[in-house]
């Protein structure tokens, strides 16, 4: 898996897909319109597309998109 593809999938879960540029270093909680519902969509995308379960607690300890990607990569079989 590569981070560009992950970021594309991640960005699709956001409300203003067109206007938002996401980078590995992006602090996802600071994205416009980020809320608990967006988080649920990201968690569901990760489960659907990578077969990895990211719990609320694990998500809470993360700051950047890169960290999220690293977690998924480390758990993926």
């Amino acid at each position, binding site marked *: 898996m590569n981070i560009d593809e992950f970021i594309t999938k991640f960005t699709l879960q956001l409300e203003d897909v067109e206007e938002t540029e996401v980078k590995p270093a992006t602090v996802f909680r600071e994205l416009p319109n980020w809320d*608990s*519902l967006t*988080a*649920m*969509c990201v*968690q*569901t995308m990760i*489960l*659907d597309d990578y077969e990895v*379960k990211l*719990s*609320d607690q694990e998500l*809470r300890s993360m700051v950047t998109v890169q960290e999220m990607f690293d977690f998924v990569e480390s758990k993926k079989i």
Partner: protein
Amino acid sequence: MPAFLKATSFHLPENILSNDQLNSEFPEWSAEKISQKTGIYERRIAAKDEYSSDLAIKAAIKLFEENAIDPKLIDFVLLCTQSPDYFLPTTACILQQKLGIPTSAGALDYNLGCSGFVYGLALAKGLVVAGIAKNILLITAETYSKFINHQDKSNRTIFGDAASASLIVADSEEGAEVGDFSLGTDGAGAENLIVKNGGMRYRNVEAKDIYGDNGFERNDSDLYMNGSEIFMFTSRAVPTLVNETLLKNQLNLDDIDLFVFHQANQFMLDHIRKKLQIPADKFFIYLRDCGNTVSSTIPIALYNAMAEKRINKGSTVLLAGFGVGYSWGGVILKY
């Protein structure tokens, strides 16, 4: 032998909880944002001295009146509730007496949430097909508001109280033939949607309000829902459920005229609809003035879909219920 869902009706309690009221208590969510995300503008809340049996009776009387049904013909009562009046007796016994249903009728409660209406149809069809009963009164009734913590913003926003009543019969010119079912269960999800205390395991436990980073989190004597776990479960289970239900009935997605799912909330329904690639005009949503009424969402939606002529004679409708348990069920209705 076939079974038919002849008629359905419902009742909502009088007290209204509006988005403005929620916004005044939880200023971080605007009334607009609530309606935009959830599809809900108001929900009804049972009065302090109003219980599931009270809502159930009103729904049943409305069903009888709207369809000229004589309660003397009812020979079985099924009541789906997770907020019964008592531990025992089964609330369905109380309904038999209060509705003037003959003492020769069978009656029982069963404890299911959002999958409850589909399971009720499955049980009722079983009773009809086995020749055990001919006119089954299926009621769903919940007063979840009684075990939702006042500080629980999410659950207070989503859930509303309601009851529905339906008649399932052996033969009917009106209504819909009940097709084949796909059912499923996964108790691994039990803890993600639960009222932990009050049953025998934790009967008289003194529970405390627990707070996290985002304020109030849970109180084990009240309803607890882990939103993201439920969302992930639903996103996985429902597409499979829909496909299994189609397969069992030898139908394709295109053969369905209207999809009526458990009305969890707009956000979740939109997500599932897109995942299944169901066109919006074939996907019924009814949340506006009642919210998520647990086992009553599907019958309330059916009632309104018929009133809006979205369901007509000849329509093929797919029902899908899913939630607490985890428990899920799907069925086809042929009108």
